């Protein structure tokens, strides 16, 4: 186990290194942040000063080296635009994104799982057709479109829910979250549902496929031969088996949820990482972009590791040492 974690950590370090290299060079190719930052009315010496201040006058490899040494010391550089440490900016915004992604995940599971199981158990029923049809829509419709539609329907026309932003937050068990206030929840519903829609569809499909597959297994037939009730079969035999792949996939998908939040956040003006990053890309705020991507990759790596560990916990057959090559 220790060796497994170690191996993963070592691999992750390499991955992070390569990533930083790629991101760094990519951003450097795109444009010159100075063009975006400096007022066109500025004098040339002002432009030169900015370039110097940000170290942009140095060759790319020197800049990268500086970044690397800084990063090893836990400093990912200061945002060009905000003049604050990129890491601090992300830490500041992360809770909002995390809250959004977590809520979306919870919605996806609580809605998707039962529907998926239902569809898997009655492959030819009408309910199944409706569920599967709905899930096709969930996959097909672009998130932004649905998001805007939801705003128009639920906020503008019906006036039930607020249009945008994060509501009040409250601290509970040391966690500050808008989940703990009514206002916060109201603000959360639309964006979280919007973000969840795609995942709901995915969970439904995964669950249905899993259910169909598991229900065809001998151990289900054997369980029936034991005279168990359908409820018991679903609870004790079907669920634990389909949960394993679903949790695995969702664990990894959680990362994309955070990444995909970008679109939802920009529609709902959710004060999370996504908005920060879109702006940073548009403005070539390299430290933020690099920090964000490294952060996302690190998150993925951690999630992958956690998923593998959960997998091992859930599935007694898996022995971690065989993993990772």
């Amino acid at each position, binding site marked *: 186990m220790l060796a497994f974690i170690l191996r993963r950590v070592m*691999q992750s370090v*390499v*991955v992070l290194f*390569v*990533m930083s290299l*790629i991101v760094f060079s*990519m*951003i450097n*190719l*795109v*444009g010159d942040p100075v063009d975006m930052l400096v007022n066109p009315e500025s004098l040339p010496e002002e432009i030169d000063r900015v370039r110097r201040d940000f170290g942009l006058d140095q060759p790319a490899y020197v800049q990268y080296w500086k970044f690397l040494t800084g990063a090893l010391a836990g400093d990912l550089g200061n945002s060009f635009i905000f003049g604050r440490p990129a890491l601090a900016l992300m830490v500041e915004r992360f809770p909002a994104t995390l809250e959004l992604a977590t809520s979306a995940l919870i919605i996806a599971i609580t809605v998707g799982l039962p529907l998926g199981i239902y569809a898997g158990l009655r492959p030819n029923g009408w309910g199944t057709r409706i569920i*599967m049809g709905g899930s*096709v*829509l969930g*996959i*097909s*419709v*672009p*998130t*932004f*479109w649905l998001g*805007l539609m939801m705003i*128009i329907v639920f906020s*503008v026309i019906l006036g039930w829910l607020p249009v945008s932003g994060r509501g009040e937050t409250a601290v509970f068990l040391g966690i500050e979250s808008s989940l703990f206030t009514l206002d916060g929840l109201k603000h959360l519903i639309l964006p979280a549902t919007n973000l969840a829609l795609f995942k709901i569809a995915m969970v439904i499909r995964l669950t249905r*496929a899993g259910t*169909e*597959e598991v229900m*065809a*297994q*001998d151990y289900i*037939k054997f369980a029936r031969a034991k005279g168990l009730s359908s409820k018991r079969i679903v609870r004790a035999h079907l669920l634990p088996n389909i949960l394993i792949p679903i949790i695995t996939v969702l664990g990894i998908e959680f*990362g*994309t949820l955070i*990444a*995909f939040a*970008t*679109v939802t956040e*920009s529609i709902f003006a959710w004060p999370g990482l996504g908005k920060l*990053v*879109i702006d940073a*890309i548009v403005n070539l705020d390299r430290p933020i*972009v690099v920090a964000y*991507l490294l952060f*996302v*990759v690190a998150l*993925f*790596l951690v999630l*992958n590791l956690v998923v593998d560990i959960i997998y091992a916990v859930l599935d007694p057959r898996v022995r971690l040492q065989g993993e990772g*090559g």
Partner: protein
Amino acid sequence: MSNLKAISALRLRNEGIFKTMQAVLSKPTTLISGFLLILIVASAIFAPLIAPTNPYDLSTVSIMDGRLAPGEEMFDGTIAWLGTDGAGRDVLSSILYGLRTSLTVAISSALIALAIGLSVGLTSAFYGGRIDAFLMRVVDIQLSFPAILVALVLLALLGKGIDKVIIALAIVQWALYARTVRAAAMVERRKEYFEAATCLELSNARIIWKHLLPNSVSSLIVLATLQTAHSISIEATLSFLGVGVPITEPSLGSLISNGFDYILSGAYWITFFPGIMLLATVAAINIFGDQLRAIINPRLSK
């Protein structure tokens, strides 16, 4: 029960393409979605012949025709059955041309991604060991870049253009194919015919391309259909974020996102009709892909 699976798998194979076709034709859902798909593809291909105007030809588009409601008449006398957009393009024509762009983008990016993914996945599965570990880490890296961000950065880097969107989407998607094909190839690799090929000392290239490839590819075909549908929607999102196709050659996605600015002003048709078309297209592809999967693999085992 394992023999039952074998039996049903056998049944499918036994009857080959002819029976598959028959299966396709006998299910109404498949039939309808297949028909719809053909219709959509055909109207994309023949857009220049069907469309009342050429929305990409700027000298024929005039903002004076902007935002006409469905059924109104444009300056040159053509009736805009589905209205016009803000720039004065006939929405119906734009949809047809946009469909063309969207499908081109989705299909070509899927094909490119498929080609890369296949090569990487097969190589990885075949050689195993360090090569596999290395390639799969590359795949991990690629997968951990959120698709939207990769596309954003790439398009910022490459500039706009349909070709650029295709490249961006291909880069975003290849890793998924690589991973899927590797998984399938790993299964095939453990089958005895693979060992038999080794025993017959066939060359690696031959084993990979003649044996591993054809046998690993079927799960990919389904994935590719679903992914094609998904990339139409990603392309739309990119357009929404302002990095999609050029504004003068709109895709379905950019039509929708452009039209969205008008939604509060009541000019619903600019976003609504392309939206319906997008939905129909993506849904048709998805349903068809699903049916295809059901037909290829009746019991959904594995």
